[in-house]
């Protein structure tokens, strides 16, 4: 309680604590620095010169970020309790204290929640205007969503419900939680710490989801490598992301990721431990590699005072596939950005607990990860298609009975072209979400009548804003054939000319977006970040587009080409 008022009376929600906690903590006067002895010497000039170093009181912070002082006091107290897990009598007793001090038991304070330099650099990529944050929180766009929180909630609400379905059968919510806990402990035992980056080069398998959730539960950050990545592309992403661990199969065709790592490890000094899935465990030939099953078995549990990630933490570092060559453009995303996008989207897509969500695209794709997040947000099952081919897709649809399919146009065009869909039972599908470019209108028109119980929607997004705009259920195939619909909840969209001025409805220009799910900036690439945003905070998508009278956006190629830039 603060000033005799309860948390509810003060109007402080979990979301507010998650959104504001770090900012308030950073602004508080936590570090006292004194040079010389100015008060005793009555050196008023020195006192005045250093007054600003004292930090801010709760009232000053409240004025700065737009809360009441009492709310700030409460949030700061909660944030400090979360960070410090106070009540460490056991630690004090174990140390002995004073002249009974036992140096061998000493743990530097900062090690209780130490972030590596690389992790701190990644966190520094998240910078938000407090006023916008306040709006996101007040509107409910940013919540306290974390993947580990959703996993735990699903396991409690429906322990026997299916979390994963694939050709081997299904994994229950409770089973997935148990499995993820074991791998989380294994990752920690292997040296992964909050904020560290773990690279994954895996197909859409159970292991992918397990590792993704375990990395998140640990407060670490996942970067996804495309299954086709080799040589220079691999080195560039692993190096730029500062990845500390690589999880990959023993073979991708005739390529051995761990073998490649072994040959190039001197170029990647931070990448210490590759984890290998598959029959060939190359421990003998590649010292340092760790078999996946060993990672998942027998590691000691996490320390009792382990700090769970909060919604403001980063958990993804994605690299757009269409990025031009040159300095890599890593897109860090926090739970706030990615998960609120999914949470708000499930009502629009009609995803519910008990549904089954299938992605034809590999999970490294932003839209596929969005589908995974949407499934977890709703308590739906994730259907797994390890490798796309038209026959594999239709087989998965018939056997796994998805209610929702997320796919790129190429996936379905190939299936339509091979006349496979006509011979497939598509009755389970309530929604097919097409994402990617270009989407031929005829594909939408050809697909819609083949869905006896479903509809086709179109989604526009990028790594920088996973689900930015989409058509809604009930919009009809004609709208989806010509348009990507209107913005996702919380997202604003406008069409602007090359000078950044909004153009009238119907006129062509560049599609620009902003909102709670738009990324904050590229990792370690300030030039690209500066070029990506307008002065007033709109993200320049690079898409040429116009907005119709109803607010639906129609894409028409790349803006640079249209504008002749």
């Amino acid at each position, binding site marked *: 309680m603060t000033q005799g008022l309860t948390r509810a009376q003060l109007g402080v929600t979990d979301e507010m604590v998650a959104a504001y906690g770090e900012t308030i903590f950073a602004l508080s006067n936590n570090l006292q620095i*004194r040079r010389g002895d100015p*008060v005793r010497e009555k050196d*008023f000039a020195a006192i005045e010169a250093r*007054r600003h170093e004292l930090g801010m009181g709760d009232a000053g912070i409240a004025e700065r970020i737009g809360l009441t*002082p009492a709310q700030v006091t409460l949030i700061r107290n909660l944030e400090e309790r979360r960070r410090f897990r*106070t009540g460490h009598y056991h630690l004090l007793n174990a140390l002995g204290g*004073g002249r*009974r001090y036992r140096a061998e038991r000493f743990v530097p304070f900062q090690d*209780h929640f130490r972030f590596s330099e690389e992790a701190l650099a990644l966190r520094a990529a998240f910078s938000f205007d407090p006023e916008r944050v306040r709006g996101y929180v007040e509107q409910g766009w940013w919540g306290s969503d974390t993947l580990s929180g959703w996993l735990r909630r699903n396991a409690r609400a429906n322990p026997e419900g299916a979390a994963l379905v694939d050709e081997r059968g299904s994994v229950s919510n409770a089973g997935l939680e148990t499995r993820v806990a074991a791998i989380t402990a294994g990752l920690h035992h292997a040296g992964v710490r909050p904020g560290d980056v773990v690279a994954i080069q895996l197909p859409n398998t159970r292991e992918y989801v397990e590792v993704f959730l375990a990395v998140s539960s640990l407060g670490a950050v996942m970067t996804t490598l495309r299954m086709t990545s080799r040589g220079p592309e691999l080195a560039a992403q692993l190096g730029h992301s500062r990845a500390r661990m690589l999880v990959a199969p023993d073979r991708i065709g005739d390529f051995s990721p761990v073998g490649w790592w072994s040959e190039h490890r001197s170029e990647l000094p931070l990448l210490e431990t590759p984890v290998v899935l598959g029959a060939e465990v190359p421990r003998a030939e590649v010292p340092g590699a760790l078999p996946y099953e060993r990672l998942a078995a027998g590691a000691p549990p996490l320390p009792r005072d382990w700090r769970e990630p909060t919604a403001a933490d980063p958990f993804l570092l994605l690299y757009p596939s269409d990025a031009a060559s040159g300095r890599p453009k890593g897109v860090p995303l926090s739970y706030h950005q990615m998960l609120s996008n999914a949470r708000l989207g499930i009502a629009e897509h009609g995803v519910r607990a008990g549904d089954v969500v299938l992605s034809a695209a590999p999970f490294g794709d932003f839209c596929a990860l969005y589908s995974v997040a949407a499934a977890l947000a709703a308590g739906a099952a994730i259907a797994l298609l390890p490798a796309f081919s038209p026959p594999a897709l239709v087989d998965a649809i018939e056997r796994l009975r998805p209610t929702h399919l997320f796919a790129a146009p190429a996936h379905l065009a190939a299936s339509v072209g091979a006349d496979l869909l006509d011979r497939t039972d598509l009755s389970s599908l309530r929604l097919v979400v097409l994402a990617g470019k270009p989407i031929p209108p005829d594909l939408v028109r050809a697909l819609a009548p083949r869905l006896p119980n479903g509809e086709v929607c179109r989604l526009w997004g990028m790594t920088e804003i996973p689900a930015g705009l989409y058509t809604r259920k009930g919009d009809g195939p004609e709208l989806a054939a010509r348009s990507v619909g209107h913005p996702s909840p919380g997202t604003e969209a406008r069409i602007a000319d090359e000078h950044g001025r909004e153009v009238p409805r119907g006129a062509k220009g560049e599609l620009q977006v902003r909102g709670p799910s738009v990324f904050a900036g590229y990792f370690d690439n300030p030039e690209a970040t500066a070029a990506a945003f307008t002065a007033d905070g709109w993200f320049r998508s690079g898409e040429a587009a116009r907005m119709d009278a109803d607010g639906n956006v129609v894409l028409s190629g790349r803006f640079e080409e249209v504008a002749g830039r």
Partner: protein
Amino acid sequence: MDERPEVEPSQAKTEIFAYAHKRGALAVGVADLDAIERIAPPGHRPTDLMPRVKSVIAIGVGGQTQGAWRVPAKAMAYFGSTETRAYSCSYALAFFIESRFRTPSIYCPPDLDNEEGPRIPLQSLKLHAELAGIGARSLAGDILLHPEFGYMYFASVFTELELPADEPLAENPCPAPSCVDMYRRQGRTPCMKFCPVQCLSGKIDAEGRQEEMHYDMAACAEMSQQYEAVPAILADAMGAGDEAGRRDALFDPDNKMLWYKMSVGSGGLLAQCFECMRVCPIATGAELADPIRRARAGR
């Protein structure tokens, strides 16, 4: 208060100091009011609280007993109710000034400032004591130390009686010579070395004086927040969403230990871990730092 006796300010000061000593103060001083007004931020100045204040009297009472310094670390926090004595002494002193000199006086509340939160006190008792010459800032997070009495607890009295101000201590007793020696050899003083959360650091100059003091209050709070443990636990329990959450908040293993201590222990306030003071040669080793030393010195 209209029959104010004619008393020389210096005579009044002597009587006030004698009364404070009689009530248990080890050290008493009058702070330079103008200096406080210049240093304290707006809203935290003596005139903000008492517009016609003329003098600020700071008193210090003895800290832990020698026995308290010797018990194991875990129990240390339960022996710290000395500030209550400081407050009762200053409370009595305010009454004494009003009855003897017919002049309005108040015992200065050390409570939290509702506007600024717990990190910024309504009035800085530390600032009053330092300017009154009964303590100087140490490398141990600016805890005030006195060359004779070591580590004390402080309280203040504001009065409209004009008293001659004292000067701050001419020399800062911190760092002690042994601490300077250790710093030269190891780069750390005892308080820096033995802090369980490593919240202290700093530099000592070539003359053996403090050059810089760094105190990470947030780190210190890792140990010290037991001070607020009971209200915090109750707040957690009241804020819990369901019965299980309330049970967890109240009967977490650490908290169960706390309830046990509270029910069978002194009932006093909880406090910081005090490891920095336990190993401080001034806090525990000053000539008159504890009752045993004072008895030996005939005081």
